[in-house]
């Protein structure tokens, strides 16, 4: 099936909105001192990206479950590697 230009635009817009929501969620729940709108979509969440640590994974998983109703378990922690992967996971599971 081929998506029309309009459908593609709508999907892209929805994705952009979701990315924004996830960025704000990250900043709010983890108390990051960064402007959510300056977080890049490909930015890694851990290490030299947003500098989250392993203890933050639990808070992040709790926040994602509360806001989007999507549960992240021990087996899905790869979805927390970057913002895009997290958004993919939320999109695919809600």
């Amino acid at each position, binding site marked *: 099936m081929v998506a029309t230009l309009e459908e593609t635009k709508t999907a892209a817009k929805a994705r952009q909105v979701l990315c924004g929501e996830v960025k704000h969620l990250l900043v709010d729940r983890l108390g990051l001192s960064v402007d959510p709108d300056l977080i890049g979509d490909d930015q890694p969440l851990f290490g030299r990206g947003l500098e989250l640590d*392993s203890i933050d*994974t*639990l808070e992040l998983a*709790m926040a994602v479950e509360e806001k989007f109703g999507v549960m992240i*378990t*021990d087996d899905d*922690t790869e979805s927390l590697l970057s913002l895009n992967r997290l958004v993919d996971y939320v999109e695919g599971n809600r």
Partner: protein
Amino acid sequence: MTAAPSVRPGGLSADEIARLLPHRYPFALLDRVTSVEPGVRAEAIKNVTASDPVLAGHFPGRMLYPGVLLVECVAQLAAVIYGSAAATRSTGELVADVAERVGYLAEIKQAKFLRTVLPGDQVVVRAQAGPRMGDLMSVTGQASVGRDVVMTARLVVTERDSE
């Protein structure tokens, strides 16, 4: 090993707590667990006494039970929650020698101290396990004296998996 006397059905004596936790004097803070739902929640008593050596230094002439030790009470009760769950899984009993499972206090997300705790106070400590991921477990806790809530806290603790 002779079983320590249990305080009441569903509760744990100080000797039984010592089988779940590695903490010993002067850092075994809970006197009695009054109820426990393994893996889920627990309630305990901490009696504060003037002969507690920590009060000799906190503070001379103005004895106050340290707030950080109330936080530690919640952390120890969290270990009772997962320790009793591990004991139940492996033996079917609430208590077993599972102290090696106790990990670390990983995070204090929030703590609020609403009232001072003084010698003679009986502190009731409550803890409720929250979501888990890997070896991390979130915990919400509360301490109260009589009807007054004296402390609330949200923590993350770790459990070492030795199974």
